[in-house]
């Protein structure tokens, strides 16, 4: 083995050490080890380059890394009960099961396409909770005007302000919020029942009856009910 060959062996050994024994990288370790062993046992660098090209060993490393990354992220999101955020990771894993890649560029593009599609789905999934939580103060203002104990003489004025607030809320929702959201997500429908799922519910750190009441208030505010 000449000196340059030895230098390349040392380089691939360093790459292997970066992932060896790391439980996040079982597939990567196997792929990098295969590359390292191929280089170590090659009679010379020219023979190694031919084997690298024929067996697509670098592509196998890239595929393995993508698989390990997606597995780790999917496991975390499953544990955190974030099924939508786990979606793109599981889609990438399904892709790797169903398609063999022979070049890194195709792999990058296929993964990028999945990530792009899911970015929109994640954004759509999180639209309602962010709007809803952001509207709580308006909902409290409305409830205050309706329920606070004030002299009768003020009731008409306060009820008128409530009606106006709701009219504005419904108009804004129908004429702006919904159409604007649908420009990005044409199928978008607010899913209030979905707010009870862990990923959304945890973002409203208050008791269930309060959330229940505010959901009803919000639907009315937007003119849905």
């Amino acid at each position, binding site marked *: 083995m000449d000196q340059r060959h030895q230098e390349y062996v040392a380089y691939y050994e360093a790459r292997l050490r970066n992932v060896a024994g790391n439980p996040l990288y079982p597939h990567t370790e196997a792929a990098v080890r295969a590359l390292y062993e191929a280089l170590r046992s090659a009679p010379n660098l020219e023979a190694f380059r031919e084997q690298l090209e024929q067996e697509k060993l670098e592509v196998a490393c890239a595929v393995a890394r993508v698989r390990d990354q997606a597995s780790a992220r999917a496991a975390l999101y499953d544990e955190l009960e974030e099924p939508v955020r786990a979606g793109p990771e599981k889609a990438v894993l399904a892709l790797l099961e169903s398609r063999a890649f022979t070049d890194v560029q195709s792999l990058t593009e296929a993964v990028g396409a999945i990530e792009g599609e899911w970015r929109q789905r994640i954004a759509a999934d999180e639209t309602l909770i962010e709007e809803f939580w952001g509207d709580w103060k308006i909902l409290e203002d409305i409830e205050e005007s309706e329920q606070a104990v004030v002299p009768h003489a003020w009731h008409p004025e306060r009820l008128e302000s409530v009606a106006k607030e709701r009219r504005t809320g419904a108009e804004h929702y129908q004429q702006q919020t919904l159409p604007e959201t649908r420009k990005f997500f044409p199928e978008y429908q607010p899913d209030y029942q979905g707010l009870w799922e862990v990923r959304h519910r945890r973002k409203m*750190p208050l008791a269930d009856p309060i959330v229940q009441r505010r959901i009803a208030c919000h639907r009315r505010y937007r003119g849905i009910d």
Partner: protein
Amino acid sequence: MPVDPNIVNPTLGPFRKMLAEVQGKGLRGPDVDRMAEVLGRMEALAQQMGDVTAYMGQLTQENSFQQFSDAYSRVLAGAARAAAKDMSDEELLEQTLGAYEQALRTHRSGQAGDAAVRTIATLERILELGRSGVSYPVFLRQLEEQGLSRALAGSAGATRDALHEDLAFAKESWLPVRVEQAERILAAYDELVAKAPFAQPDPLAFELARKRIEWELEPMHRRWTAVVDRWSYVLDLLVDWLDAHTSFAPGDERWRSPGASPAQVQHNIRRTKECTPGDVGYRLAILQEYFQLGFDDIFTHETFRTEYTARRVHWSDARLALIRETLPHCALGGVAPAELVARAERLHPHGDVRSDRGQAPPWGTALEGPFD
């Protein structure tokens, strides 16, 4: 009417530049044609659509940016492969260093953003190493062993300096949940460094640790903000109610909106006097229902003492004392006692607010309150 050029030009500018660069280098082929086709579609939509949100939504739905980038990557990768095919190690090293030098120039100019600026020191070390006379494989090995390739891979704010900056910012902002978050992320980073073979944390392990910490603390941050917002409003309502009884009320913009007649001003003042007691009652009920906090609990609550110490409770101590004394009188049909009104008039306007508001002391200063 086309979409506003002030929006279109900054959006499409980088894509126009990339296409021109590729064509300028004399590169040809189906991927270059694809770049031109996608860009042409984006330009045409900008002419056809008037609404900027609809335009951006259409580009998102058609996945135009990704499609253009994919084609651009294929063009560059193809050109690089063709150039590298018969290159010697020395030429490959030179080409690699040339790319790093180009990146360094861009990062130094600041055009690539703050995260890129943070990679300058790493790029300088890489270039120093590459110019030290080592061979290409030795250069590549040392990138691994010195953690430089990982430092670049995790460059999106994951360097220790950046994490320290995040922590310093959280402390300056006096947001305890954010401080805890920044401290835990930094600790996770250091723990991964200790375990790493070449003293650079694994980017994936760090990403997962960071996501978990941010996920865990998000509800706490939301709750903290929600508590502060609710008690702040109660204090403001009590200030308004007492001030509505003062001699300066008719000239105050809270009741004198621009162009309001004297009768309207009086109507507004009367509304505050008569309705605010009910509103305060409602807001106190909310505070109790949401967070199990009574009025007196506000002043000893961690959120209040933190906000007070951070000089973000803008009311002066004298005004806060007055707020506390106001509550028992702020009842349906109640009238503010003359003594309290006189005190409010003496305080207004400069004595209402603390002179050092917004000037937070160093993080770690012992929490204090107005009634300690």
